[in-house]
């Protein structure tokens, strides 16, 4: 579990862990994601901080954090931020965006937060075509509470609440957020990526940029589902966790650009479905 006691924000204290670079929007607060685990939250937070910095939109961004390990992000990125109740980030973001339509509103959520307790809020925010962007880290477990089953856990996956492996009879089948949201006309951009290689990080970067672009072009709801590892929750070494991600998880959750209505998409009717990442231009293949 992340160390919740180390969340003090000491302005100016640049830590090694966060790898703050000059010009980056990291606050410099030391990351408290499980140290040495290779937890994807760390690299994804850093990526998002870099993207916001690069776009020069700090003055416009309002970040909505979730409950879960993922909530750490509100401490690490130097933008206006709100912490939402568990699962309600897209509802909170809706309230913000409707209040301040010219701001860039981003939610950052884990799969317990988004796909379990918060699925209604996400579905309806997407249905309404809410002009917000969601960065969704799917690590197939509840990280913060100790590695319990999430709706996204694989069949057979051992978690602290499925000690004998997830049984479809008992707990249903893995839940595919990106595929489901793609069907909703209100979504303007839907992609699934990973962070397990330099190439995949580049794709994730591009996807987040497109998602923000979709929002800034007023096209609708945008979401990037990022497949990540939680070695501590999975009880694996970082190395085994990455192998598991590449061999098992990405098989269940293919990395794909599902929908891209940036620039054009007839009102986001779902016709913007564009299929798998093409593999050219540094985009893939992703494993």
């Amino acid at each position: 579990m992340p160390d919740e006691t180390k969340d003090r924000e000491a302005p100016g204290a640049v830590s090694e862990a966060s790898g703050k670079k000059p010009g980056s929007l990291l606050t410099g607060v030391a990351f408290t994601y499980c140290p040495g685990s290779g937890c994807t939250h760390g690299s994804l937070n850093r990526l998002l901080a870099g993207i916001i910095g690069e776009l020069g939109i700090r003055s416009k961004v309002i970040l909505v954090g979730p409950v879960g390990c993922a909530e750490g992000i509100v401490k690490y990125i130097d933008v206006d931020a709100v912490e939402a109740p568990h699962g309600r980030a897209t509802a909170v973001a809706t309230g913000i965006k409707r209040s301040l339509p010219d701001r860039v509103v981003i939610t950052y959520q884990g799969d317990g937060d988004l796909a379990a307790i918060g699925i209604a809020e996400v579905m309806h925010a997407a249905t309404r075509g809410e002009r917000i962007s969601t960065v969704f880290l799917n690590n197939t477990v509840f990280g913060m509470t100790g590695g319990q089953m999430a709706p996204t856990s694989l069949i057979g996956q051992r978690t602290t609440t499925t000690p004998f492996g997830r049984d479809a009879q008992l707990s249903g089948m893995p839940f595919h957020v990106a595929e489901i949201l793609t069907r909703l006309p209100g979504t303007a951009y839907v992609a699934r990526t990973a962070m397990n290689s330099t190439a995949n990080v580049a794709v994730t970067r591009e996807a987040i940029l497109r998602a923000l672009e979709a929002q800034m072009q007023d096209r609708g709801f945008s979401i990037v589902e990022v497949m990540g590892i939680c070695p501590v929750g999975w009880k694996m070494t970082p190395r085994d966790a990455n192998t598991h991600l590449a061999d098992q998880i990405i098989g269940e959750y293919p990395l794909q650009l599902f929908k891209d209505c940036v620039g054009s998409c007839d009102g986001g009717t779902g016709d913007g479905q564009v299929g798998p990442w093409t593999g050219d231009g540094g985009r893939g293949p992703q494993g």
Partner: protein
Amino acid sequence: MTRHLMKGCEAFAEATVRAGCHCFFGYPITPQSEVMEYLSWRLRDFPDGVFLQAESEVAAINMVYGAAAAGRRAMTSSSGPGISLMQEGLSYLAGAELPCLVANFCRTGPGLGGVEGSQCDYLQATRSGGHGGYRLLTLAPSTVQEMVHLTVLAFELAEQYRTPAMIFSDGILAQLAEPVSFDDLLVVTHPKPWAVTGADGRARNRIPRHFFSEASETDGLDPETVARYRAMTGKGPATPLIEAERLNLTLAEKYRRMAKEEARWEVIGDGTDFLLVAFGTIARVCEEVLDWLAGEGIRARLFRPITIFPFPSEALARAAAGVERVHVVEMNEGQMIDDVRIAVGREKPIGFYGRTAGGVLRVGEIGRAITGALARREIHA
């Protein structure tokens, strides 16, 4: 003075607009769906008007949380089951010290209950409806006109104290049409330098602020408190515990300040045979009960709490000082009696009359119940 004949619901909705609240999120529920129906067209009059029918009360209160965080005057309105769903959100709003307004037009309960008006959510409204021991500044109007004034005041106090506020009413007042004026409303706003609006040329704002405090670990806390948490956390930083303590002390201090400054009440009549205590819709019926009792040769006075949190405890103690007996009337099974007992002390007998399944209690019904209880020297609590 211009007067309009309006239902409580609609007058309330118009009052929120006049108070400068152009941000509504809600989910329909009887007996107050007209609030959102009214605002669905009314808020179109304003370029900054935000009206959104949410997918649930859970979503609605969290949208309010977002809008309030963004610095807007924001509100929602609901009834029993919907208010229950909002409790987690209200706890977050209270913990984040965000101003907003929530109206509860009570129906009957528990469970789905019925759509008749009642006061059965008194305990939920005045204690800590959700987790964490927070309070809502809660105003309970007894007429449609008073609802208009208290609504405007509620927004002001919510911002002044940085707290969610509640208009606590019932299905009867929601549906009652009365002449009402919106003239001379005093709208007071407070600056919101803490709002998240995008960090444009300033340090960033974070909500809730306490858990990311840039204050020194020891600010505002006595050395013993600090030492206690430092000892508890051993080598790790004590900051999260210290900040949690600081938040709860801040809230407790705020509630004490409210109790001192914001308790509101009214005393009607000057009879000394006994003191009648009632709030909201039923208090206005009790005004007529005073006359009914006078016809029976009994001279009573009525104490009407206007704020039910903070409860006007000291004022009630003063009002009860000269009488031997107190009689409480509520549209529930006696949820306010604890507060009355605390105010009047252990010795004074308290009688009670109430009905729980909705509908207005009639003057004669209350009068007879009271005279019967007086004759039997009946003590409820």
